[in-house]
């Protein structure tokens, strides 16, 4: 079950859930990063929808999910979810060739776009929260699966639309409970349980 509550991504200072980082700030960073990556690499302008916080699981879905983990003084993960046809569309703009079906090139494109989006959010947050290491992306394509945070974290979800198709970029982040995080590139926790 998904519990949703809207937040305002256009302002900062509200919706504080963790010391040092508000959900509004996180949502704004996701929005700015996603818009920059899509306009720069794909030449596409996305329309942003109403940002919300999802507790526990994020939408039951089919399609493509790409996940990147990060670790350091703060830990968490970010992901991009879209339908198969939407993945084909953005891969076609990214690689400048047409894709009618999801294949390795499409999945690799979605993974790299996720890496850029979440990587840029991480860079923005590192100025305040400290250096964090980024994992390589994991991408999943299938039907009737759910993503779930094993730590029961809240996800800040930013939906976008392009010509009526929908895509979501979402992140969950929390202070690292492990006080021995002395190295920047400590092992990444597996942030999700996936059932496909």
């Amino acid at each position, binding site marked *: 079950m998904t519990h949703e509550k809207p937040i305002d991504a256009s302002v900062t200072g509200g919706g504080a859930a963790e010391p040092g980082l508000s959900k509004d700030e996180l949502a704004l960073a996701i929005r700015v990063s996603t818009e920059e990556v899509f306009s720069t690499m794909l030449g596409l302008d996305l329309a942003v929808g109403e940002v919300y916080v999802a507790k526990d699981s994020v939408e039951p879905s089919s399609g493509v999910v790409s996940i990147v983990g990060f670790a350091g003084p703060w830990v968490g993960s970010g992901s991009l979810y879209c339908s198969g046809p939407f993945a084909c569309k953005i891969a076609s703009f*990214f690689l400048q060739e047409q894709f009618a079906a999801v294949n390795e*090139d499409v999945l690799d494109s979605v*993974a790299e776009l996720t890496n850029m989006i979440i990587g840029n959010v991480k860079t923005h947050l590192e*100025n305040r929260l400290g250096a964090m290491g980024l994992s390589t992306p994991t991408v999943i394509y299938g039907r009737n699966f759910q993503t779930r945070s094993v730590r029961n974290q809240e996800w800040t979800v930013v939906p976008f639309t392009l010509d009526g198709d929908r895509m979501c970029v979402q992140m969950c982040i929390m202070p690292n409970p492990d006080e021995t995080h002395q190295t920047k590139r400590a092992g990444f926790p597996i942030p999700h349980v996936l059932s496909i």
Partner: protein
Amino acid sequence: MASLLDVLIVDDSAAIRKILQRVLKQAEIPIGEIYEAGDGVEALEVLRKQKVGLVLSDINMPNMDGLEFLTRLRAEPAWQKLPVVMVSTEGTHGKVLEAVERGASGYVRKPFTADQIKEKLAGLLPA
């Protein structure tokens, strides 16, 4: 006639390798062979076999990341002057500084435009 420049692209993303290939071919640079590697280990193997005149490398990669690759590359006398441009999502001042200290010739942050790559190369390569 200008001699052709062989290039090595190092990135774990095949999509990015493909995009950088396209950008290089569109640039006003006499490009010869373009070699690809998915991580630092593969990149060092390519460099031992091929004589390349330019390297474009990601930082976050499995097996051996771009900074470790850069350090090992610069430790070899034959590669100390080889132009190496890092192309990465890592964008903090500290990370850029670390790359420069390890011997990077240039740094382009992802996302990038074709013009940003071309401008960076124009400043590094002989006219």
